[in-house]
C-alpha cells in the first residue's frame, strides 16, 4: 500500500524538481551578486585555466640566477627519452667550467610527456611547465630549440595566448 501510494503521489519527482529548480534560480538570479560565481564550469578562454601542480606540459630549459643555462650536457635526458625527441650538442663557452649546450632541440610533436627526462636530470635544469595549448599549424613549429624567435624553449609558446604563465 505504501509503495502504491508512493507511486501514485509524485513526491519524489517534486523533490527532484525542487532541487533542480533551486540550482536554476540560484545560478540565474545571483550570477553577478556574489564574489564567488555559483556555476562550476571554468570560463576557460577568458579566464586562465588552473591546472594541477603535477600537470605535465611542455619541456622547458631553466636558467640560474645569473641568467646562465643550467644544463651541463650530461645527456641523461637524451639517453632516457623513450621517443628520442631531445638532441643535445656539447660545446664550450667562455668563462664557464661546465660544458654548455650549443644546441638543445626538443621535437614536441613526438613527445609523450612522460617526464623521464626531468627525473633523470641531476642538475634540476629542465622541467615540464604548465603550458597545454600546444597547437600549431606546421610541423616545423613543434621543433623547439634554445634559439629562434617563436620556437624558444624559454618563452611560452605563441599558441598559448590565454594559458597559465610558466611558474
Amino acid at each position, binding site marked *: 500500500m505504501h509503495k502504491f501510494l508512493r507511486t*501514485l503521489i509524485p513526491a519524489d519527482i517534486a523533490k527532484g524538481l525542487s532541487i533542480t*529548480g533551486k*540550482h*536554476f534560480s540560484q545560478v540565474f538570479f545571483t*550570477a553577478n551578486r556574489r564574489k564567488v560565481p555559483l*556555476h*562550476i564550469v571554468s570560463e576557460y578562454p577568458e579566464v586562465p585555466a588552473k591546472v594541477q601542480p603535477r600537470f605535465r606540459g611542455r619541456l622547458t630549459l631553466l636558467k640560474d640566477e645569473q641568467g646562465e643555462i643550467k644544463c651541463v650536457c650530461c645527456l641523461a635526458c637524451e639517453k632516457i627519452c623513450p621517443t628520442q625527441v631531445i638532441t643535445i650538442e656539447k660545446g664550450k663557452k667562455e668563462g664557464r667550467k661546465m660544458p654548455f649546450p650549443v644546441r638543445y632541440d626538443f621535437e614536441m610533436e613526438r613527445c609523450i610527456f612522460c617526464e623521464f627526462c626531468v627525473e633523470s636530470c641531476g642538475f634540476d635544469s629542465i622541467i615540464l611547465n604548465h603550458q597545454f595549448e600546444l597547437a600549431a599549424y606546421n610541423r616545423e613549429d613543434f621543433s623547439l630549440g634554445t634559439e629562434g624567435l617563436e620556437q624558444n624553449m624559454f618563452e611560452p609558446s605563441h599558441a598559448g595566448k*590565454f594559458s597559465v604563465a610558466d611558474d
Partner: protein
Amino acid sequence: MPTPTLTQSIVITLIQCLLVVIFVFVVVPLTVFAERKVLGHIQQRLGSTRVASGHVGFSGWMNRSMWKMGRVPVLSYWRGIPGLVGDVLKLILKEDVIPAKADRFVFFIAPSISMVAAIVVFAAISFVPGTFFTLPTWFPFVGGLPVSGGIADINVGLLWILGVATVGVYGIVLAGWSSNSKYPLLGGLRSAAQMVSYEVPLALSLLAPVVLSASLNFGEMSARMATGMPAWALVPQVIGFLLYLTCGFAETNRLPFDMPEAENELVAGFHTEYSGMKFGLFYLAEYINMAVVSALASAFFLGGPWLLPFGLQGLVNPYLPGFLSWFGAPHAIFFVAKIIFLLFTYIWVRGTIPRYRYDQIMAVGWKYLIPLALINLLLAAAIRCFAV
C-alpha cells in the same frame, strides 16, 4: 461595428493566420535556445555563452575583462543566440541522403506529415476567446473590424485538435518503416506504441474539462474552466492537469519518455536515416508539438487567457477593485505567459528526471495513468452531476 464582407473576412482571417504563424515560429527557436540556457543553469554551468571565435573584437574584450573581474558579463548570456542561426544553416546546407533501398516517396512525405499535423492544430487554438483587438479605422480595407485571438474557434475544437494531433504518429511510423533499416523500424514502432498508449489517458484526462464545461469549443471550455467554476472543482483538475502533462510529455516524445532517442539502445530512433532539412522538420515538429501541448494545458487547466488557474479567477473576479479589472479580462499575454511557463517546465523536467525503461513506460501508461484518468473522469462527472 460594421458587418464584414466576404473578402474583408478573408483578409482578417489571413491576419489571424499571420499572427499565429509568427507566434509559432518565434516560440520554437526561443524554446531551443532556452533549452540550452535552462539546462545549463540547472547543471550549474551557464549554457551557451559564445559562438566560435567569441574572444575577439570589442565584445570579446568586454567579456574577457568582465570575467577577469569575477563578473558574469551580461553580453555572454545572449551570445549563444547566433548558434541558432548556425544550427538552421547547418540543417539547410547538409547533404540530404536518401538510403538506397528506402521507399523514396514515403521517406519524403513522412517528415511533412509530422510537421503539418503539428502546425494545423494551431488552427483551432484560440488565444483569446472572442475579440483580441479591433483594427484602427485608418487601416486600409479592413479598418474598424475585430480580429479574434486565434484562427478559428470552431465548436468541435477539441475534437479537431485531438484528431489532427494524432496524425503525427503516421509521420513517425512511416519514417521508421520507409527508411528500410532495422534501427529506424524498431524506433518507429516503439514510439508509435508509446504514443498510441499515451493517447488514451491523454484523451481521458481532457474529457474532464469537457464534462465540467459541457462544451467542445476551445474558447468556451477555457472560459468556463477559468471563470465559471467553483473553487472546489479544482481538486480533480489538479490530478487531471498532472495526468495531462505526463501524457503530453510522452506524446511529444520528450524526456523522461524519450524513447525514440534512446541512444544506447537504438541509434536515434525513427529518424536515424534522416538528415538535412527532413530531419529539421522532425525537429521543428517536436518543438511545435511542445507548444501545442502547453497551449492546451494552459487553456484547460491553467486558466487560459485569464490570470489565475484552476477556476480561482472566477472567485477573485467579483472582489477585484475596479482599476484591476484588467486582470479579469481575457488577454493573450496571460495565455502566452502560461505557455512559456509550461515550456520551461518541459525543460525543467528534462533536467531532473532520468529516462524510463521501455517496459516501465508501458507499465506507467496502462497500469497507472489510465485508471487514474478514469477516476479523475468519475470525479469530474460527480461534480458535474451534483454540484455545478
